[in-house]
């Protein structure tokens, strides 16, 4: 089966990952966020005052949400089962693969917003700043994270890149 055919099963991860406790993801994501922050310090300059905001990242096809706090020198990511009791300044919602394509520099944030596949709520200025800061990162954030986890990470990203929208 071609990898792109797997797009038909885009909601499968939501069901497969549902039994996994949210705290299991945190160390991996925290390590990835710290790696990106150290490798791309200019990112915080572009974020400006919004580096002290809390961004809720809601994947429409995964059974958890992320709270990103991109504070300079102390980036934090927390994982929650759902968004009901999480306080945030801005919320960004979209599918995991679309978010990955944005971090990979392969998708335009405005275009995906026009198509309604990406939704934002709350502090719009903070979201625009975050979008521009991430887009200014040379290369691919997704690639940097994959490199962090070695050959398995790169193989996983290569597989995900082959899945079409």
């Amino acid at each position: 089966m071609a990898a792109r055919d797997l797009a038909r099963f885009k909601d499968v991860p939501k069901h497969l990952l549902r039994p996994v406790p949210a705290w299991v993801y945190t160390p991996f994501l925290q390590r990835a966020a710290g790696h990106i922050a150290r490798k791309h310090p200019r990112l915080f300059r572009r974020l400006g005052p919004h580096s002290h905001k809390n961004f809720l990242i809601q994947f429409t096809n995964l059974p958890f949400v992320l709270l990103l706090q991109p504070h300079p020198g102390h980036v934090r990511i927390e994982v929650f089962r759902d968004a009901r009791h999480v306080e945030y300044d801005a919320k960004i919602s979209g599918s995991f693969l679309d978010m990955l394509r944005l971090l990979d520099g392969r998708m335009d944030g405005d275009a995906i917003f026009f198509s309604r596949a990406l939704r934002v709520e709350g502090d719009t200025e903070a979201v625009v700043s975050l979008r521009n800061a991430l887009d200014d990162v040379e290369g691919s954030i997704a690639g940097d994270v994959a490199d962090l986890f070695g050959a398995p990470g790169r193989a996983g990203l290569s597989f995900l890149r082959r899945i079409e929208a």
Partner: protein
Amino acid sequence: MQEETRKKPELVCPAGTPAAFRTAVDAGADDVYCGFQNATNARNFPGLNFMLDELEEAIDYAHRHGTKVLLALNTFPPAGQTQLWKQAAADGARLGVDAFIVADIGVARHITEKHPGQRLHLSVQAGAPSVEAIKFYCEEFGVKRVVLPRILTVPEIKSLKSEIPCEIETFIFGNHGLMAEGRCSLTNYATGYSTNMDGVCSPAGDVEYKEDEDGNVRSRLADFTIDCFGCGQNAGYPTICKGRYHAPHRDDAYYAFEEPVSLNLAGLLPDLIEAGVDAFKIEGRQRSRAYVRAVVEAWRKAIDDVVEGKPPEIADLLAFTEGQKQTQGAFQSKKWR
């Protein structure tokens, strides 16, 4: 005779970040236009634009690749508050930009007097569509190129070209907010910020999106509801000119000013080149590297095809358009609203 001496049109590409800048150069831009992180340019958006050290690095990268850098100083300084623009002009001249894109006659005069020899392009924000207006800027400030407002047909551009003493640049792709370029005060009315003086149309800090339980998204600018997108409807930029409104003469909410749609002149490219257009501009400094890469590569190939006498092959760029709709606007016909 003009045919024999005509230069290949330049492709003028947008860059809102250093990464987008390098992407544009690598994708085949002849010129890249950009601005500082302040009110001196008309895309003064959060997290966008260049700091001094970033612009210095970008200019070095561009010049090593044979690409020119155009610095947008295309806003209008408020009376008595000109220092920011003077400093930007001094910084641009010192760093070695290849041209300034200006709209305000005071900024143009300042650069002419304090930085003689610097090349000036007239921004679309100056709103100069006539022979008389363009000649004024050429004679008074030595403007070398005019970016035309998006209200002229191709035959009108051809006629204009024969009567003015400078190069012509036209938009070919991107956001199509042309209602009153350089004159629009809708954002100012709604938010207190000026598109023309603060460089920000629909400031993000005043934009709010609210989704209801049925999945409808309501967009607001300050105290004004601009639109409500139902499930499955494509969205546009949260600008007042692209909103839908109720009015006494209509039963439904409708686009009272303009529709969310992007300009795409792929079908008119050979005609525009034949009309003598010297440079083609892609809109979108607020857009991502992915947009810059795809759009610049597509237009690079299309222009090269036409110049080589081949029918232009232009990639499908619909996914990058506002509202996922495109138009040839007034370039095709004055019947366009």
